[in-house]
């Protein structure tokens, strides 16, 4: 049973506006959302680079050198620069949103969002440091 609509049989002329295709450009917050969603494309882009790198590794020292040279192509550097900004954006938004999905309580009190997000950043730093350390250990 649908209450309240049951007797609304004489529909007046309702006016509906369609959401425009460019809805996401209407507001800064929507645009930010779209950019956040688009960051996923750059995530995938990086995975492709990674796969190419693995492929090169499989091909031996020669191929790997070639791959490294390829990465120096200015076009690719620019592209990677843009990608880097996007994945950075992804990481920051992602860490900030965690507290929304997870309510952490300490002695019955809900922890403020900032405190829940903070360990994310700490871990991020640690992991990044570890990777740099592993890669640079022997120069």
């Amino acid at each position, binding site marked *: 049973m649908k*209450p*309240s609509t049951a*007797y*609304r049989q*004489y*529909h*007046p002329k309702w006016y509906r506006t369609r959401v425009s295709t460019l809805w996401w450009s209407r507001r800064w917050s929507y645009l930010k959302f779209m950019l956040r969603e688009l960051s996923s494309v750059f995530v995938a882009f990086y995975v492709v680079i990674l796969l190419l790198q693995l492929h090169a590794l499989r091909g031996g020292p020669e191929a790997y050198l070639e791959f490294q040279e390829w990465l120096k192509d200015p076009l690719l550097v620019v592209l990677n620069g843009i990608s880097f900004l996007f994945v950075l954006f992804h990481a920051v938004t992602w860490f900030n949103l965690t507290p929304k999905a997870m309510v952490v309580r300490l002695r019955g009190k809900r922890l403020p969002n900032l405190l829940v997000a903070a360990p994310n950043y700490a871990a991020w730093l640690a992991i990044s440091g570890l990777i740099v350390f592993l890669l640079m250990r022997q120069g």
Partner: protein
Amino acid sequence: MIDNSSSEMPSHDVLLVGGGGAGLRAAIAVSEVDPNLSVAVVSKVYPMRSHTVSAEGGAAAVIKEGDSLEEHAYDTISGGDWMCDQDAVELFVNEAPGEMLQLEHWGCPWSREPDGRVAVRPFGGMKKERTWFAADKTGFHMLHALFQTSLKYRSITRYDEWFVTRLLVEDGRVQGVVAIELMTGRIQAITAKSVIICTGGCGKVFPFTTNANIKNGDGMALAYRAGVPLKDMEFVQYHPTGLPFTGILITEASRAEGGFLINKDGYRYLQDYDLGTPQPKPVLRSMELGPRDRLSQAFMKELDKGRTLEGPYGPYVHLDLTHLGKKIIDTKLPFVRELCLKYENIDPVSQLIPVRPVVHYMMGGVHTDIQGATPLAGLFAAGEVACVSINGANRLGSNSLTELLVFGARAGRAAAEYALQNKPVSAGIEAQAADEKKRLEREFLHKRSGTEPIAVLRGEMQSTMEKSAGIYRTGALLEEAQADIAELKERFRQVAIQDHSHTFNTELMAALELSYMLDVAEAVVECALQRTESRGAHQRTDFPRRDDERFLAHSLVSHRTGDRPEVEYLPVTITRWPPGERVYGRPAAKTPPG
């Protein structure tokens, strides 16, 4: 767009006019008596928009050790200046805890003690702490809990945003209503075997009120026009603490938590009006926790002495919460802080809140017995629109929300029983409905000759009421008001309507509401004029004493077409508590009441 060819009249067993606290409680009660009874809830706003949503402070019911039903009854009766029917009050305090627990089971988020039990707070005029609260949004939480729970019952059909214009009465019993579906403008009769009016109060009859825009006394006028008397209409409650300009209420809970009322010299002036001596901590039934009528009257006397402050929206005094500290304010009174910050740009944690008395509640209403039944067969009423009466000459804060539950449930059960008698719909109903439709079209929708703007008439009515039926009244002013209201009713015949459309015609609604309010105003003025004594919220400067000889009685005012309304008196039911002196803030004197 209006379809009148379809003679299909929707019909139900029990029909509720109003989907506020009382209406929804009654609807559920009907369903619980018999799930096969079909219930219609007709409301001019979506139920969760009803005015119950604004109630802040709390709802009273005895639950704690050390409290007793007798004391709740006594507080209520003395608070009401012995105008309450004591059988009704006894039953009310008895059933209150059960109803409140029921609401707890339905999910109302009552504030709690650390051990998980329901918490209570003190309230004005109450000797014990017995007011249940959900922070300071009690009405909001109660209404949403009731509304959401009502969604569970399949037998309840809602007519959201349908505006009732008339009760259908034939063969001496009520058989349904005529209502306008606002969305389409369709005027439709809905029949029912019994009808419960739960339309709430009528604060909008006055200019400065805590009440929402929808509180226009609709149900009182509907009943009045159908020949049902209204009871105790002269008792209009002023709440001592409203924000100037908006009239937004600063809940009594702010005083219960320890707020002070101070005049322009920073002096706790209530001590000058026989309300006790100032103490740093709140003392029950004393000073700021005195009853609302006495506090509002004290304000007027301060005004006379020139000890109030003057602002752009009239005189005011200060409510001081600063000594409570941020923590108490944020946990117990967050909404007060929110409202002050928003509407006055004041932070009560560190600043004084400007307040003045404001029209708040109607003690009177449709005359009912303790089952919620009116003298008209099949018609019931509950909530603020009704007068059972448990509020007497002055309602105690936090009794109203409980009243919605107790008497909403009672009226629901009684109306269900009545509907089960299964009397058939009379043949004349359809013709009556057609007449009503013609009236609405003739007088409003199709009329283009009107000259009197709605806002002007409404404004004049409101200032008349404020001037003559306010906190202090005199015979002379009331007589003037009587003439003014009669004249306004005459002018209303020429009301101007610019909007002739059928789709969501809010102007038509405003016109109809104004006509209801004029009826209510007439009733208030008439009763106030006839009651030549002072009692509770009704204070006549020309008759300053209470007169139990003549007026320990309810006034019953009845509509007389083309003539002044007629007022009769019905003795107050006294069971255990003989009329006494109302004492606040000091031990009761032994002398017999005067």
